């Protein structure tokens, strides 16, 4: 079993030499455009020069080291914070869905699963469609349980159901696999891959999980305060080095190394 040692790291650098996505390809129904977005607090730059187009029904994965600004980017897309430079432009009315990384309800609030689901905007789906979501996410046996007593996997399913009930056209998943047992992971991949037509939407997934990134998305973006590289996972998969390294080890998390961004001279780093 290959371990993450130096010879592998050197070759992982080549993995990051993804070809930039051809812009003309994204002409198909744009949903959201991020135009030279930047965010800084007290002169500390968290993100800059983020330019990105998200098309309808497109799945994008965002990977990157800690401190790369992935959470900040998510908050900007969700309009929870405003960019300090640049613009976000929505080409269609956005119905946002968000499954956060960390979620806990204050213990003083005895919220049940049912109560959380009732907080979702109503009327976006038919009762049959709602029932479909509850069936396939196995929500019904959980309905009267207290949210605080749910396991990680159960919480994730409930949060996903709550997001889907509002029929989002842009769904943001922040580290959806974190804290899940392998069985729940498999189950979650499958569910997201096989979303029915009435739930199809653009998806932005932040993940350290290469398995998901390679399998689940059409586009991968490597973020490190700026967009290091982006491209198609298929372009990664065909390189013989990649296959030799990750062939049957997609489970190993993506570990970003400084030299992955070697295309920038050290002085240019922020």
């Amino acid at each position, binding site marked *: 079993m290959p371990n993450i040692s130096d010879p592998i790291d050197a070759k992982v650098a080549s993995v990051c030499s993804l070809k930039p996505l051809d812009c003309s390809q994204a002409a198909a129904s744009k949903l959201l455009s991020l135009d030279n977005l930047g965010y800084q607090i007290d002169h500390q730059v968290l993100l800059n020069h983020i330019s990105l187009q998200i098309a309808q029904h497109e799945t994008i994965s965002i990977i990157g080291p800690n401190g790369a600004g992935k959470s900040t980017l998510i908050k900007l897309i*969700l*309009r*929870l914070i405003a960019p300090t430079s640049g613009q976000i432009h929505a080409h269609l009315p956005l119905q*946002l869905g*968000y499954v*956060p990384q960390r*979620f806990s*309800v*204050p213990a*003083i*609030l*005895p*919220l*049940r699963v*049912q*109560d*959380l689901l009732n*907080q979702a*905007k109503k009327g976006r789906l038919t009762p049959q469609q709602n029932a479909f979501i509850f069936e396939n996410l196995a929500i019904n046996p959980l309905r*009267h349980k*207290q949210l605080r007593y749910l396991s990680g996997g159960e919480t994730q399913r409930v949060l996903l159901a*709550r997001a889907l009930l509002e029929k989002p056209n842009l769904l943001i998943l922040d580290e959806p696999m974190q804290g899940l047992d392998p069985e729940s992971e498999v189950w979650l991949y499958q569910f997201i891959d096989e979303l029915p037509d009435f739930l199809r939407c653009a998806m932005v997934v932040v993940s350290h999980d290469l398995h998901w990134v390679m399998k689940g998305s059409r586009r991968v973006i490597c973020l490190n305060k700026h967009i290091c590289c982006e491209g198609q996972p298929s372009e990664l998969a065909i390189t013989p080095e990649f296959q030799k390294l990750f062939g049957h080890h997609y489970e190993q998390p993506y570990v970003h190394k400084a030299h992955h961004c070697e295309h920038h001279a050290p002085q240019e780093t922020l």
Partner: protein
Amino acid sequence: MSWLSIIAPAWIAGSILALLSAPLGCLVLWRRMAFFADALAHGTLFGVGLAILFQLPIGLGVALVSILVVAGLVFLDDERLPSDAVLSVVAVTLLCLGLLTLTQLTNQQANVLGFLFGSLLEVDWSDLPVLAGTCLLGIAALVYIWQAQIKLATYEPLAKIQGIHPLKQRLFFMGILAGFCAIALQAVGSLLISGLLVLPALTARLYASAPKQMVIFAMIAAQVGVTFGVWGSVWLDIQTGLAIVLILALIFLAAFILSKITLKKSAS
């Protein structure tokens, strides 16, 4: 049976107040604003003092001080200082200012105990319609913001995505709280308003498994507290507010011990 005509309006007034204090108290706990409620409650004392001093209506005095409290908290925002400590400073300063105004600057020394611990037995039949109307308004306002407040208490980002404005909601909630403090002043007095708000809700939490259930249990606890408190204050000749809050504290303690016992029983 003339004492019944004294107790009846007081008991009705207390019951009406309990109807509003139960859901409001639940929200105060869910929104983690118990210390703020306490600061506002202490502020009412100062508000009353200022109103008497400048011959303004009491409501206006309380409203002014409430705005002062909110403005003061915004001003005193510093990440190095924990918010509960800052609120504690504000509360105790307002208490001093209130007592100062009432005892030194006006002729209200005799009434100070009443302002501090309530004078519910002085409520008249003629006071009840206004009280009922105000409480009804308060309940209507709570119903209006209820969903938004619960969503903010659950998880703020998801609430913001739905278009809820955290700041607007917080200010509106503070307004309702200030209004409640103004009307509860007579019932339980400035020092005990937070007891009336928080104790029934805390008791309810021990047995509730859903938000609405918690509100209903809090209403029951508040009602029992008011009833026994009013009768107890007449019977034992103590300040009504003291009696009500002591009963509520006893109810909470009993409920807590009971819940531990039943927990042990179900575990074994």
